[in-house]
Structures are given as C-alpha cells and as structure tokens.
C-alpha cells in the first residue's frame, strides 16, 4: 500500500491533495468537512481587508453535454471579517493538527500591512503562507493580485517583506497571465520564497448570452473578465509547471494547480515536479467526496508501478520534455487499424482527409483510392434503397458486423504518424500507433542542421 503522507517545504499532511484557495476553503466549517472527507490540506480563501462581492460570480463552458469543462469566476478575496477567519483557522488547527492549513494572503502593497497579516495568521496557527500574486480580476485593479505577479520587482519586494517576519514556509502563487512564467518564478525565488504554487486562474470571458448579448457572468447587464480554471486549463498549467520545474534558476518545490479533477491529473502534475496538488473546480462541481477516488486511484496506480511514496515518482517526467530541436527526426510511427475492433464510424477517415494527410482510404471493396470524401458520400446518397422487408434482407443487415467497405485502410507509406486518427477513434485499442524501423540512427533537427549547414 502506497504511502501518501507528504512533507512539503516542511508542511506535513496525510496526503498531497489540498483544497486550493477559493470558495471550497471559504470557512472553517467547509475545511473541516473536507478534512473529514479525506483532503490532506487546505489553502484558506485569500485573507485580506474584507471586500464586497457582486452577484452573479461564476460562468462556465459546457462541452458536448458536459457541464463545466471550464469555470470562470469574478469573485474577490474573502468577504468575511478578519477576526472570524483567524478564529476559525485556530479552531481547525486545534481539531485537525495533522492536516495542513495554509493561509492565502493579499493585502495592499505596504510593508506594514504584510507584516501585520503574516503575524496574525501565524499566530492563529496557520502551517504556512501562500502569497496571492495571481488573482486576475478585481483585486488587480486595486494594485494587488496579478498586478503584483506581473511585475517581477514587486513580486520580489513583497516576498522579501513577508520573509522578514514569517516563521512558517512561504509559497508564492503565480499568475499565468504573463508571457513567461519563469520570470515571475525567478522573482519569487529572489525574494526568498520557499516554494511556488501555479497556476492561478487565466483571464477569460467564457461566452456571450446570445439573447441578451451580455457576456457571462451577467451582473445587471454588464460583465467583467474573470479567472478561468477547471479541466480546460490543465494543459496550460502542466506546461507552466514543467517550465518552472525545469528552470535551473528557480529550483523551488511546487504546488501544482489547474484543472485537477482526478487521480490521473494529480499523478501527471507530480510527474512534472509538483510536491502537492491543489483542487478547486472539481470540488465545486462534485463536492469534497471526490477525494476518495483521488487517494484510492493514486494509491493503486502507485502500487501497480512500484512507487512507495510520492517522492518515488515526483519529477520523473521532467527530463522527458525537451526543446523540439532535440527530438529524433528519424523516429517513425504509423497508424494501424485493428479491423476486428473497428465499428465503421469512419471518423479516422474524414479526420485524416480534412485534418491531416489524406493517407486513410475507404477502398477495401471499391479498390478506388482516388475518390475524395464527397464522392463517397454522394454515392451513398444517390443509391436507391428500400426498406428490407424479407427476413433474409433483414438478417443481412447484421448490425454486429462492420461491413468491409467501412473499414478504412492506412497507406503506411504516406502516414506521417501524426496521431490524429488514433485520437478521434472512439474505440479503445482499435487504432494503435506503431513504430516502424527506418534503419536510420537518431538525428535531431539541431544535429541535421549542423551536418548540412546550408540545408
């Protein structure tokens, strides 16, 4: 049985799953229920001078019938009095001493203000601090949040102020709304940060109501850009985590955030260097109970891979990312269609023709590999067919067997191994991408360019 206990920059917790600073970690009652459900830690919703929120606050992107592929919010930091938050932090830590409670902080850019808030939350019992330099909406207009994170000098300066007084570990939460997140990461390190959290939400407008013409979310007929999160942002977050993790000028422990909803997502963030992972949207969507499979699934996967602890695989995939110029130009794969599994949807065919390299053909019966998609469709639509009325004709339909004419053929000589057919195929294992030997040794673009400078 895998051991998920975590010691992240000196903060100990039963597992690496933390609630991210946000609505699910708004109050002590929520945080305690989350700990009861199994969460290892929580980053308290950002504490600062209380604000006033608007309604509505969230909007989302649905995709093909699924809700909340991406979530956007225009909610600000905590709207609860400081003393209430502090009292509840104390209460939670008293009842849950083994769990991590990290206080997310955002106050105006004054040294005294930061010194004061740091002392207050540490006195309340917080295990660590997370400096919110990432919130992209509302607070940034007041010179806080991403307004700090986007200016490296400010980030360094405020981190330094915090470190002057902090007795607990300090995380800096980075904004992705910047052209190179490594610059912000280096600034935080320069200021003395003990670790980094990434990513905060991405500037977004999720959509426009096609009846009212107001973008979402609608606040009395007006909208404002919000912060985007949820499953849709995971690839962006993973990329930024990888960039930070592999930057020799940063080398700080990472708490990964961005679209994590299941144990696979968590494993991926850890493989790219995260020591803990933070979750918000998935908990907002389904509740704290999702933690059960996150822990269970991750443990089972670790067991199956022979990993006893999180550290056994943390960062294992960082070295597998390189610059494009180092990739092997002589590595070749081609698509193979396993016709016993093919259901005849022919999505691979049209994807290859319209979206790739025209090397999948529907010619196994016709023998005509010159026909274009429109001609194939036209043939079907011009055909004269009748309702099969005889038993024999009905039996001949045999919907369990894919007609040979609908099973595509890959022209392996033309296949560039792009993966698209495999990606669109709805059937697991029907299309596999298989290596073919080119007889050539490894050669990268850089090597090839060096070998033939004029080429």
């Amino acid at each position: 049985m895998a051991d998920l206990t975590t010691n992240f920059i000196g903060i100990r917790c039963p597992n690496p799953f933390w609630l991210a600073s946000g609505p699910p970690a708004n109050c002590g009652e929520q945080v305690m229920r989350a700990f009861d459900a199994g969460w290892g830690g929580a980053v308290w919703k950002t504490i600062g001078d209380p604000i006033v929120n608007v309604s509505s606050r969230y909007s989302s992107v649905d995709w093909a019938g699924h809700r909340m592929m991406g979530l956007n919010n225009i909610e600000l930091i905590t709207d609860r009095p400081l003393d209430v938050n502090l009292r509840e932090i104390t209460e939670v830590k008293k009842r849950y001493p083994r769990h991590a409670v990290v206080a997310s902080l955002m106050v105006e850019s004054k040294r005294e203000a930061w010194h004061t808030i740091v002392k207050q939350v540490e006195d309340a019992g917080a295990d660590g601090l997370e400096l919110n330099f990432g919130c992209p909406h509302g607070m940034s207009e007041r010179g806080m949040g991403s307004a700090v994170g986007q200016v490296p000098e400010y980030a360094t300066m405020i981190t330094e102020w915090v470190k002057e007084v902090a007795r607990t570990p300090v995380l800096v939460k980075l904004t992705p709304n910047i052209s190179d997140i490594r610059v912000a990461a280096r600034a935080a390190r320069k200021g003395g940060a003990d670790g980094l959290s990434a990513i905060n939400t991405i500037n977004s407008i999720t959509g426009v109501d096609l009846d009212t013409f107001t973008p979402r979310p609608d606040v009395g007929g007006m909208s404002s850009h919000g912060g985007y999160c949820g499953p849709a942002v995971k690839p962006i977050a993973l990329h930024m985590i990888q960039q930070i993790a592999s930057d020799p000028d940063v080398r700080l422990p990472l708490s990964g955030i961005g679209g994590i909803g299941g144990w696979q997502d968590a494993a991926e963030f850890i493989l790219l260097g995260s020591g803990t992972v933070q979750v918000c949207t998935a908990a907002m969507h389904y509740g704290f109970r999702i933690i059960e499979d996150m822990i269970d699934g991750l443990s089972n996967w670790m067991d199956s891979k022979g990993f006893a602890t999180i550290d056994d695989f943390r960062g294992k995939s960082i070295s597998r990312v390189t610059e494009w110029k180092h990739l092997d130009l002589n590595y070749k794969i081609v698509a193979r269609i396993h016709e016993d599994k093919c259901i005849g949807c022919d999505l691979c065919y049209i994807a290859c023709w319209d979206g790739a390299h025209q090397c999948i053909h529907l010619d196994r019966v016709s023998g005509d590999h010159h026909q274009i998609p429109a001609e194939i469709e036209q043939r079907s639509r011009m055909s004269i067919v009748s309702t099969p009325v005889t038993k024999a004709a009905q039996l001949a339909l045999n919907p369990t067997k894919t007609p040979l004419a609908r099973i595509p053929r890959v022209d392996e000589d033309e296949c560039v191994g792009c993966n698209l057919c495999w990606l669109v195929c709805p059937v697991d294992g029907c299309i596999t991408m298989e290596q073919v030997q080119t007889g050539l040794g490894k050669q990268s673009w850089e090597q090839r360019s060096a070998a033939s400078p004029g080429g």
Partner: protein
Amino acid sequence: MTPEEFAGAFAEIHPAFEPQAAAIEANRCLNCFDAPCTAACPTHIDVPRFIKKIASGNLRGSALTILDANILGLSCSRVCPVDVLCEGACVMHRYNKRPIEIGRLQRRAMDAFYSAGADLAVPPGASAKSVACIGAGPASLACAAELRMQGIAATVFEARPMAGGLNTYGVAEYKLRPPDSLREVALVRSLGVAFRNGVSVGADITLEALESGYDAIFVGIGLGPTESIGIPGEDLDGVVDAVRFIAEYKTGTPKIGNRVVVVGGGNTAIDAAVASRLLGAEQVTIAYRRDENAMPAFAFEYEHAKQQGIRFVWQALPTAIVAGKDGRAASLQCLRTTPGQPDASGRRHPEPIAGSEFTIACDTVVVALGQTKLFRLLEGRGIEFSAGCVRANRATGQTANRKYFAAGDCVNGGGEVVDAVADGKRAGRGIAEWLGQHG
C-alpha cells in the same frame, strides 16, 4: 369509448423526447462519416447533420435538414421501422450495443418545426408546366412537394374526403394520428400544391381529361381494399376488411367485437389485431397459414403483438366462416398446413393437411390478406404492369407511357411510407427533368 378513453388506449408507443433528453441523446451520436444510417434511409436524410443540430440547439436547421430529404419527416419519424433502417444500421450496435434513437430525435426536430408554425419557404418563380398527381398518399405528397421545389405546379386528386392516404387512414393510431398526418398535408399545401379532395379519377374526371389538362401525370394511387378471402361465409356480418376496419376506427366510429380472429401474417394483420385489443376485444387471435418464421410482419411488430396478449395460431388455412344463430360470423373453420414446395416468394407453400379441420370461435373475422391492385383504373393508357403493379423506372418514376410517372404502393406492391416518399420524390425530379427536355 369516449375520445379520452380512445386517446388513452392508443397512447403513442414511441413518445416524444423531453427537449433536454433529446439533446443528451443527440450528443451521444458519433457523427459518423458517410453515416450508415443516412445510407440505410430510403430518403437518405442526413442523420448526423440533423442530430448534431439538435445538440447545438439549431432546431429549425435540424428540421430543414430532414425536410430537404423527406417532406414527410414528421410521419416517417413516427411510423418508420427504424430497427431495420437507420437505427438498424447505427454503428453503436458495435460500440455499446445501444443505437442512437434516431426516430425519436427526428420527431423532436419535426415537432419543434410544426410547433413553431411549420414555416417552409415557398420556392420562388413558377414554370408554365403543371402536373396532376392521382392519390394524396405519401408518394403523391412527396412528388408534388418536389415538383413545387422545382417550380412546377402540382394538383393532387384524391377520392377520399381527406388527403394523406394511409398516413391519415391506415397507420396504427398509436404510431401516427390523423391530425399529424394532416399537418403534413398542410405543409405540402403551403408549398403551393393544390388539393382536390373527394374527386375520384375515373369516376369524376377521366384520365383523358387529365392528359389534356396537364403536362404530366403522376400515379400514386396505392392499393385497393383487402384481397377477398374467397371462402364460404366471407360476406357474413362480422367479417371485415382490415384496411377498412383501421380506417373506420381511426376516422369514423371505433368499434370491434369481443372475440376477434385476424387472418393474415403481415404488419397490417398485427395492426388490426393490436387495435382490436386496444378497442376492448377480450380475445384476439391471429391465424396465419404458414409458420412463425415465414410471417412477413417485422420482428418488432410481432413482439408488440405478443406483449398485447394476441394469440397466434400458426399453419391455419381458413376454409369457411360459419354463421351462428343470429346469422353473424361465429367461428372460423381451418385446416392445418404443412410446408410444401417453395413458391415464387422462395417460401415453402403451405399445403393443407386432409382431415385436420379445427375451428376458432369468434364474433369478428378481420381479413388482412394484403391489398388488391388497382391497375384496372389505368388500363388502356399504354402503361405496363407486372403482377398488377405499375412498371416504372425506379430512378425517374417514368412508366411505359412517358407522360405517366408512378411510385409508391401501386408500383412496389406495398411498402413503407419512407419508400413511397423516396420513390415519389425521385419521380418528382424525373418529371421535372422530362418536362425540361420534352415539355
């Protein structure tokens, strides 16, 4: 039976989707390339296209996609034997064993279209050509609509008081109701098609008159009354023709006996038997001269009949209908049969077994032996026939008399609504092309 009781008894067997349920189902469609469902549909409705428009909330676009291929998309969504057509061809059979509910999705799009006012743009302009369509069933409606799309005037002549043919008079009530059929007729009328209901060609107006008054004639006369059973007692009270019985319960006075024997094994026999049950008959028996496997009814129709408690007596060849004391039909006398030599249909001919007489007590005998051919109406005009059916070019509908085109049951001997629509539409195009070249 009150109208409410009738509506309750004949509740739809394929009820409409709730709007969001339709969207969920629509999202399940894989959007196949050159989709097998589209290929399997005789009218080649672009199924994935209309389904994905339901998913995207473009219901009008969805409906127009359907109507572009099949002007009777509403009735087809309700009456098509989808198990052996679009849904039978769905690749989902090989994916998770649950084909997309294409028929009900089509109904969703069509219901939304009709609820929104059934506004279909009338094609601009008109040629000087005009066509007479004989019969107002699906084939004629499809042909006339296609002619209007091509700018050609079309007049439909219908002997009955209402248009729609079997869609109005002949489809089981739990699949399609007359008001829905008539909504489709109204749609076709909105395209500029003229309807002359209650005008019987041959009796009220001659073919010669049509020939001189119109540039082409489309024959969509369908089939006639049920074939006579040709046994003693066939004229007794209590012996009814299945087609007439169905028309009567749908558009006239619903009534049936208590113990009903339906003679025949086709889909009409099932429709008549199930309707008898729903109208209140306690005991309904289908007597068929061949065995279960040779029965021409669709498998799902047979299952439906069994669920309704219909009793089947196989290999029963009726020999006489015997009257009771009141002079009405009181029993059906039969002989057992055994399979003999294969006949023209490839099925083994049912040979009666001497001395195997048995009787089925009843108060009503419904004869469902297939419908008669109406070719005599068309004789003498240079049209050719084959086994009583009009011979027509399948691609154009044109007959041996090139001014006459034909499609539907009078050509195919009795098919599905969607077959009549497909052939009727092709005939409309065939007429337009022919008029363009020769008119």
